[in-house]
């Protein structure tokens, strides 16, 4: 094989069948075994947007990211909660191992302010993760968040309704959370640098 071809094959965008995808980004272990196995690199991508689509409140969409949030807070990193639909209940967070002092609860009045707050928190680089509830976020907004997350080296989680699954997304990972009534099901709809699975998996 000549050297020129070799250099082309080294390019991160080139993937050959049978080759393990190369890890080029830092990851944050999700703390959920099945999920870590499925995500490229073995965890949530840091410096990128993770989109979580849930078919309703209360099916376990937040507890999917809570182990990672707890570990970040124990490492002394801040986690911003931007425009959550209800109060993130401190006793429950404590039970999950979260250090409460590191949680920043932001209650913006409007969607524009929420986007702004999320972008500022990401870009400042002081927040380990930013969890943002942005039901009305469009492609441009998500793209902005993606760039801000890259700039700040921070993990951005955008939580939306599962209706958004039909729209294209610039997010690095898109996960759909649903439930069959007894168990939570997590489906990876998109993940950059990995294989998408077509059936839901219990997690």
């Amino acid at each position: 094989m000549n050297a020129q071809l070799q250099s082309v094959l080294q390019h991160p965008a080139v993937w050959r069948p049978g080759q393990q995808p190369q890890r080029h980004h830092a990851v944050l272990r999700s703390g959920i075994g099945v999920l870590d196995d499925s995500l490229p690199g073995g965890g949530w991508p840091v410096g990128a947007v993770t989109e979580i689509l849930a078919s309703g409140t209360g099916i376990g969409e937040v507890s999917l990211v809570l182990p990672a949030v707890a570990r970040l807070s124990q490492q002394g990193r801040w986690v911003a909660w931007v425009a959550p639909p209800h109060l993130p209940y401190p006793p429950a967070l404590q039970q999950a191992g979260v250090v409460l002092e590191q949680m920043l609860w932001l209650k913006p009045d409007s969607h524009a302010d929420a986007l702004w707050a999320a972008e500022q928190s990401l870009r400042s680089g002081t927040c380990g993760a930013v969890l943002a509830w942005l039901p009305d976020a469009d492609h441009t907004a998500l793209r902005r968040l993606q760039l801000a997350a890259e700039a700040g080296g921070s993990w951005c989680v955008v939580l939306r309704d599962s209706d958004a699954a039909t729209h294209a997304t610039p997010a690095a990972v898109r996960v759909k959370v649903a439930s069959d009534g007894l168990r939570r099901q997590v489906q990876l709809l998109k993940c950059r640098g990995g294989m998408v699975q077509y059936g839901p998996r219990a997690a």
Partner: protein
Amino acid sequence: MARAQPEASGAWLAVTLEHALAEGSAAELEGFALWAMRYSPLVSVCQTGAVSGVVADVAASAHLFGGLDALLDDARSQLQALGVSARCAGAPTPRGARALTLSIQPLKCWIGPAAWPQHLRQLPLAALELPASDLEFLASIGVRQVGPCLDLSGGDLDRRCQAPLSLWLAQLSGSAPDPRRSVQVPEHFDRSIELLTETWHSEALLFVCKRLLGELEGLLRGCGGALQSLNISFGHAHEHPDTALELRLTRPTQSLDALPSLLRERLSRLEFPAPVRRLRVRAIPQLDWQPQRPELWPGAEETAVNRDQLVDRLRARLGDSAVRTLGAQADHRPEHAWQTNEANLAAASSRGRRAAAVSAVRGLRPIWLMPEPQPLSRIAGEWQEERGPERIESGWWQSPVMRDYYVLRDPRGRRLWAFRTPAGDWFAHGWFA
């Protein structure tokens, strides 16, 4: 004790305003002197006729700015950013530095003590701010520069001139002392500016604010203090009351670099009843401020500063009540088991890793708590008991409440935290998200 080379000792920065100050604008010159205090606390005002400016003794502080030339560059770029047209120069004597700013072409670099004796000979006499009659007389005998004047006999010159020329020349070269009265650092900052035209524009107001902030920062550096809160009032035409704006920072700070961006957020949300005519900035420096001690690990301090800046920025736009940190309370009643705090615990929480506090609550708690319990009938779904009950009673000192909490689940997989009262009514209180 006579020093071998008294000329070689000093380093003075002179800044001279190019525009003439209006009548009765002593406050403006004073403000300008405050601005210059960023370079040295020893600042004195020079005013001859309409030409006003300041000189500052920077011999002891120049190394903090990376040397004299770097300090001069810094002063020029600062002035340019503030939109002030002024000339800066540096020389070993205050009179010399001042004369350099007044000579036709102030030089780009600092004149050091070694070059000074040669350089001062070429200065025009006009730069010495002599009375016009003296200049006329000296021109009539063919003397237009400092050099030939130095060669003349001092006694003769003094007899023929109104100004004490031989003393001034000695002060210029540095062979005679030149005592200057320093500007006293005021205890609080209170400056107002009348705008040239009325304006609604937040950018125009921000520009004026920046100028006052530059003076404030100079004062802070001059007195070694810091600032935590700042009052700005915008004056309108007579019938309207002033619009007030209070800016509060998470942590006292001496550097005000972050303030313009905070102000921009606040200004863009401020609604004025009428165009703004005057602007007044008031602040009281905190003198008991200690600069942040450097941390052992690089980065920790920087993170704390970045956090403060982030919190300040978020607060400026969202409001103080919308930026909180969470906390737990040791209380068994669910509504009282939490609290929120002002988000200024950055310093405390940045002190490295902390172990997760163990929750005092034993039972399962939901991630979302509703602000008020809602009747379960309002939440659509076929709810089935999954877990429970957990009895929670209110304290006897309150109106007695007894609740049996259950975890409910519906066929869609949603889980709800709900309670039943002794009367048999169901209320939803949270979601297991």
